[in-house]
């Protein structure tokens, strides 16, 4: 009960509801930053966000239906790298391997710029004792088992998260 103790650290409660590469970043960035500031942090992984608790992360990004997403090339001259490549929906929807290519380009661009990978950020969160809570209901719906997820996470439901969030200073749904 952080609120009953005025000396308790600040608390951040996050819901991670999306499992794509681009949406995997915000919860892990905010959680590791808050943990580094000495805050208590918990992330509730629900719906598509639950796959971010798998031992092997396979988060991908789809430019389809993501019209503001800039497509950048991670190689070539600086001028070439700064070009935003327009990608017609027809191309994205119909070319096999397009999503894999877009994911590869985003990962390489992020790496070149010095952004940590999702794996690194998740490990940083574990080092900082961030609570990672997997949603039981989502597990049941999608047919996951406890052993499909990293051993460091715990499993809970809406009440588990709400009790934690009720005493949080910052709550965000991502």
């Amino acid at each position, binding site marked *: 009960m952080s609120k009953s103790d005025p000396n308790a650290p600040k608390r951040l409660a996050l819901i991670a509801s999306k499992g794509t590469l681009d949406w995997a970043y915000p919860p892990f960035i905010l959680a590791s*930053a808050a943990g580094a500031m000495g805050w208590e942090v918990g992330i509730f992984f629900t719906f598509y966000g639950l796959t971010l608790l798998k031992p092997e992360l396979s988060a991908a990004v789809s430019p389809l239906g993501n019209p503001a997403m800039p497509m950048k090339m991670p190689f070539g001259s600086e001028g070439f790298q700064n070009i935003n490549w327009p990608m017609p929906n027809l191309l994205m929807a119909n070319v096999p391997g397009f999503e894999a290519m877009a994911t590869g380009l985003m990962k390489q661009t992020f790496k070149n710029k*010095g952004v*940590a990978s999702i794996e690194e950020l998740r490990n940083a969160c574990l080092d900082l004792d961030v609570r990672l809570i997997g949603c039981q209901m989502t597990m049941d719906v999608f047919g996951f088992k406890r052993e499909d997820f990293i051993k460091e996470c715990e499993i809970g439901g809406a009440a588990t998260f709400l009790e934690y969030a009720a005493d949080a200073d910052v709550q965000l749904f991502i």
Partner: protein
Amino acid sequence: MDTINEDQVLDCTGLLCPMPIVKTKKAMNELQSGQILKMIATDAGSPPDIAAWSRQTGNELLLSTEEGGKFIFFLKKA
């Protein structure tokens, strides 16, 4: 300007948010109270972020400066 003698140096050159503060926190864990960490970063977001980190953690930011395209911070462990 008085010279600050650091006890430890942490180079976060090339790293983007949030790694500079994550690594700073880790480096600070190794220091004793009163010891000083010199942190070097190239992330343009680090001056406001390190200032916020300092306020949130109570570790004093003695100096925040820029030298040759690099941001340099001196942090004293609380």
